[in-house]
């Protein structure tokens, strides 16, 4: 594995993304809306229902988990473009003609599809924490964020969930013929995270620091397995001869 080639592929994908304003806006808009919207909902709830921020604290953990879902959603959009998009734009054949290994291409593509959504999610999460702190400081008497749960969400959960989403999408890309079907099938990756969120909301599980650590551990193992699976499923020849 030659890291300079991995960096070149990831760097190229990031450079292409920077020059696609529509994709960039859609990537940034959702986290910003969520990062501002969720604290506003909390603030409005407090002022309209004459309740305190302390009574809404369980909700803030659930909102933290929402950002895990967010990174999965955002990654799906980019990851579908990573391989299938290149094929559709006919740029994959010159790329495959270079002396680059399957592992280098996949790792470069994974980083290129994973880093921007993660950055956008961190932006949303930063806004969320800053606004929640601003709205709750007077009521709670201390700054709620950053705390251990959000640190685990941001430091472990979000990157591992993002990688999971990219790898699932790369696997889907290995047999999907167009971006739309790759996105449709790839978006199913969100279902287990939604299920976990709903389970947390109805009290089946508690989405606290320990729960997120367990989720992160499972995701770390899955990410490793999926990387090797995606490498096994990446067939240059079929990509060139079967995709139309």
């Amino acid at each position, binding site marked *: 594995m030659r890291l300079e080639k991995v960096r070149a592929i990831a760097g*190229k994908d990031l450079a292409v993304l920077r*020059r696609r304003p529509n994709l960039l806006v859609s990537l940034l808009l959702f986290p910003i809306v969520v990062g501002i919207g969720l604290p506003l909902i909390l603030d409005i709830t407090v002022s309209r229902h004459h309740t305190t921020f302390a009574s809404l604290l369980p909700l803030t953990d659930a909102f933290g988990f929402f950002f895990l879902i967010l990174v999965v959603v955002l990654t799906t959009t980019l990851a579908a473009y990573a391989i299938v998009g290149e094929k559709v*734009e006919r*740029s*994959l054949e*010159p790329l*495959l003609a*270079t*002396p680059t290994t399957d592992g280098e291409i996949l790792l470069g593509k994974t980083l290129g599809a994973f880093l921007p959504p993660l950055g956008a999610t961190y932006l949303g999460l930063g806004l969320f924490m800053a606004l929640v702190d601003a709205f709750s400081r007077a009521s709670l008497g201390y700054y709620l964020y950053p705390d251990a749960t959000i640190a685990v969400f941001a430091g472990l959960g979000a990157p591992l969930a993002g990688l999971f989403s990219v790898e699932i999408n790369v696997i889907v890309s290995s047999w999907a013929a167009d971006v739309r079907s790759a996105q449709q099938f790839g978006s199913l990756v969100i279902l287990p995270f939604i299920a976990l969120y709903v389970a947390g909301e109805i009290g089946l599980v508690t989405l606290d620091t320990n729960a997120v650590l367990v989720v992160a551990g499972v995701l770390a193992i899955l990410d490793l397995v999926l990387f090797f699976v995606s490498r096994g499923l990446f067939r240059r020849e079929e990509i060139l001869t079967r995709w139309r």
Partner: protein
Amino acid sequence: MIETQGLTRRFGERTAVDDLTFEVKDGEVFGLLGPNGAGKTTTVRMLAGLIRATGGTARVGGFEVGSPEGAQHVREIAGVVPDNVGLYEPLSAYRNLDFFGRLYGCQEPRRGENIRRLLGQLGLWEERDRPVATYSKGMKQKIAIARALVHEPKVLFLDEPTANLDPEASLAVRELLLEVRKEGRTVLLNTHNLDEARRICDRIGILKTRLVALGTPEMLSGTVHGRRTAIRLEAVTPAVLEAVRALAPREVRAEGDRLLLDLADPAAETPGIVAAIARAGGRIREVTEESASLEEVYLKYVREGR
């Protein structure tokens, strides 16, 4: 530099390339001519290490393209221009070339020097920072060729480099290919364009799933009807025609004021025929030797498919 032996590729029941055997020497420009679906693109993809053969063997630069390690080495020493340019349109020409230079392992400062030289040769240095999306088709095709040359490959595979280009852009690309030829690189060129093949290629193979003809353009022209002698007269009279036919060339045909003769040995036979025409009262204006056009050669072999 390139050797194939019985190279075959099947896709399920369909045979795309069948029993292909040929050799391309170092520094030679070899053209593969053939109709759509003849197997030209499949051949280039096999030789460039992009897809595997289902039969036979091929070596490029001494590396066996059938093995994963060999294919990897071939990709290091080869440049490929696919039938579609496939550039990253939002990026500049410089960024496109720099990216591929990195993937081919071409280090700085050589990479930057090569990009500067290539863009300079193509007259695109001043446009280097413009997104490729703003380029014309011809400019994009030039960048695609430059991309394949950025790491100074020993072998260049070109798949229909002038297809879908207007005449002016085609001319620019052909001039670039002539420059590449001067640099002494081995080139395998897939083309529909017979004039391009005649002007650029040292040897030509005509492919119709199988290789149906192989040789220099001149040799191939000679295989259609030998060398043909054309005699232009003031008028082709029945007496002239009879006098020439009496000397029994293989074929005698009158076309307006010209007599077209298929001779086994023009140097030996032409003086006698000229004398016979003069004796029959014919007034000769011009005697020339013609060979079959590459188009005639192509059509003959492709139609016969032998």
